[in-house]
């Protein structure tokens, strides 16, 4: 549906949410949604503020694509939580997204420095 797309404001550069999730999972293995959100925030020194809920639609899309797999487990606090894990396809995708990101950032940097 058309609704919703324009509701949330990502404070991270558009299109990089997948990259962030993929990279986070690549570093830490299994994580549930809350941990992923916290991890992104912590590592970026609170610079990147994800609208936390938007992680979930993104995770669903990644599940469809087969980049991540999910299974239920228990947290340290003995609560049921869904843990996400990178798949082989996810690893490949991470490489693709990384190189794409670097190309864009590199280009932007060159434009800025040309000033």
């Amino acid at each position, binding site marked *: *549906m058309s*609704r919703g797309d324009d*509701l949330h404001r990502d404070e991270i550069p558009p299109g990089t949410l997948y990259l962030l999730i993929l990279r986070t999972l690549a570093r830490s293995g299994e994580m*549930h949604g809350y941990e992923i959100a916290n991890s992104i925030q912590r590592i970026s020194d609170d610079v990147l503020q994800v609208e*936390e*809920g938007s992680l*979930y*639609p993104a995770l*669903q899309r990644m599940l*469809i694509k087969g980049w991540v797999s999910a299974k239920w487990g228990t947290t340290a606090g003995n609560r049921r939580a869904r843990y996400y894990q990178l798949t082989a396809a996810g690893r490949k995708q991470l490489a693709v997204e990384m190189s794409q990101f670097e190309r864009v950032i590199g280009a932007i940097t060159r434009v800025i420095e040309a000033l």
Partner: protein
Amino acid sequence: MNWLREVARRLRMLMHRRQFDADLEEEMRLHLELRQQEHLESGMTADSARAAARRRFGNVTALREKSHMAWGWGWFEHLVQDVRYCLRMLRKSPGFTAAAVLTLALGIGANTAIFSTIDAVLLRQLPFANADRLVFVWATDAQRGVNEDVTSFPNFEDWRAQSKSFEAMAAFTTRRAMLSDGEKAEMAPAVQGTPGIFELFGVSPVLGRTFRPEEMEAGGSHVVVLGDAFWKERFGGRADVLGQTLRVNEEPYRIVGVMPPGFRISRDKPERIYVPLVRDPSRGHGFLMVLGRLRPRVSIGEAQTEMSVIARRLADAYPKQNGGAGANIVPLVDAMAGGAKTGMMIFLGVATLVLLIACTNVANLMLARSASRMKEMAVRAALGAGRRRILQQLLTESTVLALGGGVAGLLVSSWMARALVASLRQFNVPRLADTHTDALVLGFTLVVSLVTGIFFGAVLGFSAGSSKLNDVLRESSRSATEGARGRRLRSALVLAETAMALVLLAAAGVLLKSILVMRSTAPGFRSENMLAVEFWLPARRFAHDPERIQFFKSALARAETVHGVRSVALVADLPLGGGSDSLGFHIPGKPDPAPDKPFQSLFNVASAGYFRTMGIPLRAGREFGDLDSTNTAPVVVINESAARRFWPGEDPLGKHISLPDTTVLTVIGVAGDTRQLSLGAAPRPEIFLSYMQPGPPWSWLVMVARTDGDPAPLAATIKSAVQQVDAGVPVTDIRSMDDVLALSLAQPQLFAGLVTAFAALALMLAAVGLYGVVSYTVAQRTHEMGIRVALGAHRRDVLSLVLKQGLGLTLGGALVGMLCALGATRLLVHLVPSIRPGDPLTLTAVSALLLGVALAASYLPARRAMKVDPAIALRYE
């Protein structure tokens, strides 16, 4: 393979949708609670901790929906939702649902029924290997305008030798043959075929062998292959029939093989046996139908080109026998269906019209309903449903209705198809009996239903899209009606419906008129109290004139003594039998109409007293008498048409004709015309020879007997009287002349009946449609009517106001329909050749009928409008 796994994942999600939603919910709740916990630990109050967690998370409902939609099943879930909603709506208005489903079921059922017969006769693969490469090769005759003509044996041999397009070619002809095994004799259709005809079809016998090449030569041809039905009925399906003897036309034939069930070559009555075709060296004797199997990858067009060249070469080489002859290649499937194809296509057209009318009606019903549902639509739109979503819902509703109609239509169709097959049985259409609902028919029904649903769904959407939904919401409920566009649309629909109904009515009218004309046509003889007994004369025993004439005399004398019989006579071809032979002859003293083209007339044979017995009046001269015999000069009686054609303005009595064998005959009498082919076909010139004078050995004869009362009880007595004279002369058919008369009307009557049934259905639907529209307008304008009456309008004025609307629509529709009918009724010539398309009297009559029904259909609501009580109407806000 990645996309395959992706599809599998999406499907898994679809299966476990509920679990999926629960998981997502739990996951999100955990996230919110953990965040809330964190905020609590940092010293917030419980309330503000929860609020902060929610703020950081975003719109939970929207995110949940977005996650759900990511899997791409939105359309499916909407569909399920719409179907559920629509089923609920339909259950709530059972009257509407029943009316709509029934209307559609009739329309779809009629189409499915006709299509299932077309499927059986034309579309289903013939049960032969390489069936798509099997063709008929017809001769054509440009001069007579015939394009499916028989050819001669030498022509067939030349075709086969010279053409390169065919793997195999075979020729056959159909005959009736006397089959007897020593006890029981029967007259049965038989096929005489060249060796190789079975191999051409790729069908092997279930028992024994087929014909050998040498069995085509005279003398070696006394072998017979049995058809499955004959084998099972007469020989109990026993394997020891091989080598037994079957008497075919009084001659012993050795049984060499049995064909499997379902094998059939003849287009007419299914053949019972097969005998070898003996080579006939006469190039002028056309009697063969030719079959061919195309080589792989040779198209019909290529074969046609080649055969045309060969036919032209043969025409040049033998101008006398083959002048003007061409070749025409027709796929076997089409050739087998023969004339039935056109008839079926016409009926499919008729059924399509009925379906269109049914669609229009249901669209109208739904329009009326959707007008009252405008408010619902407006509320939906206000709550955020997009226009596409609303259209999707309307389309779902119409499709669900149409599919319901389709399912009910299958029931209707299985009943209709059975009735259709039963009523067409007498016409021996090949493969018609195989009619059943197969996958193709089901697919057809499904497609027709879907197209129907989309058709009137689109009509609905067109009208729903026209009004501004927001305006509707703002206005009061009374004026929440469809706009002018909707009204115009409804009127246009009724107009179209009326026009289509008129076309069908005109078709029915034209057909019925032709039946009336045929009924009132004097057949030329008196049919009441008249019996016709058909015999078959074994050619061998009656080859010589004296034996034959002696038999005729004895049989007549014996039959005359039967109590209750007034007079008896013999004839070769009965009127309305359609089986007379056309022969050429010369008139001494007159030049032939064209070089090499003698005069042509039907020839028949009759005995003394034939015309008196049949009640055929004599216009001049005398009929055959006992004095005409072998010893007197050969004489003929001619009919009026022959007198007019060959001796215009002259007295034919005493004039002569000469036959190709140089016999000269004298005209002694002129008899009234009878209808030889059918009641619908004009009489043709006919010349009667005498049975008591020398002539060719005619194998067929019919004894006609005029009786004192009902002729049926005398049939057995007359039959045995003749068989007392000669037990070896089998009776092949006994009918009363009333039956003969009725049979000649059977086919046109059946067609007229079918079309009339469809037309009646169409008229009824159109009337219901008109009634609906007028009633609806009356209901909408109750307020206005009240004001008119309150201001002093007469009730009569109100009545005419409403009637005018109904009649205006009908007149418009009738006018359009009339124009279409002028063209459409022309097609019916293929069903009943004697119709008069565009007959003004008929068209006027059916238009009057339509207007009458329309008047009745609009009078009922008009009377309601007239009775409006202004006090109530004005309060009715």
